[in-house]
């Protein structure tokens, strides 16, 4: 949670912190993949054009929404 808001973890043994950092990578990947979960829907499997179209649409949408992020 603190990783997502950019805080530093204090007071944890460094060996444990290294494992936690690795777990954060995998957990964030898991959440992000489930958010983007194109592969989970069989109708998109093997349909390259649809997949790319969805990707392009997502990119346009995120670029549009990210303007505020860039300003922050």
């Amino acid at each position: 949670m603190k990783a997502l808001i950019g805080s530093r973890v204090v007071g944890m043994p460094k060996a444990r912190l290294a494992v936690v950092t690795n777990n954060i990578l995998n957990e964030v990947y898991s959440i992000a993949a489930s958010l983007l979960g194109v592969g989970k829907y069989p109708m998109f499997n093997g349909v390259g054009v649809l997949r790319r179209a969805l990707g392009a649409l997502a990119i346009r949408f995120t670029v549009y929404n990210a303007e505020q992020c860039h300003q922050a």
Partner: protein
Amino acid sequence: MFRFNKYLYPTVECVIKRHAELGGEPVPVGSILECMRGEGYSGVRNIYYGLEASIQDGYVVVEYSKDGRGKRRLYVPTLLGAVDAGIYRAVAEALYSGESPSPESVRAFICSMRHPIFWIAVGRLAGSIASGDRGSVPHTRYS
């Protein structure tokens, strides 16, 4: 200024992986090069290029060794690096079939996706507390 190249996030992932394998010790560059070659990235210069970008973006910090072999540069991953590398891997796999997105797209995706991921993580944490499982990191203090 955000600096991006296709070696950036694979380098961060390698630093995180090797850092965990070394029990939290800072990672020497040789270990990162070895890991990157294992992932299919070649070219020492390119890998250094990714490493320098990761330092500039705040994903990796440099420490200097204090042993008797001079001041060697060693690398330690940050939590921000773990979060953004996770998002990048998911985006690259789901929407770009493993290829490298453009720098603008990467920046936009990472910036936009942190927010929903944060709230999903809050939901998961609340769920784990409600079910009595507080995870395996007791007595952790944050600042």
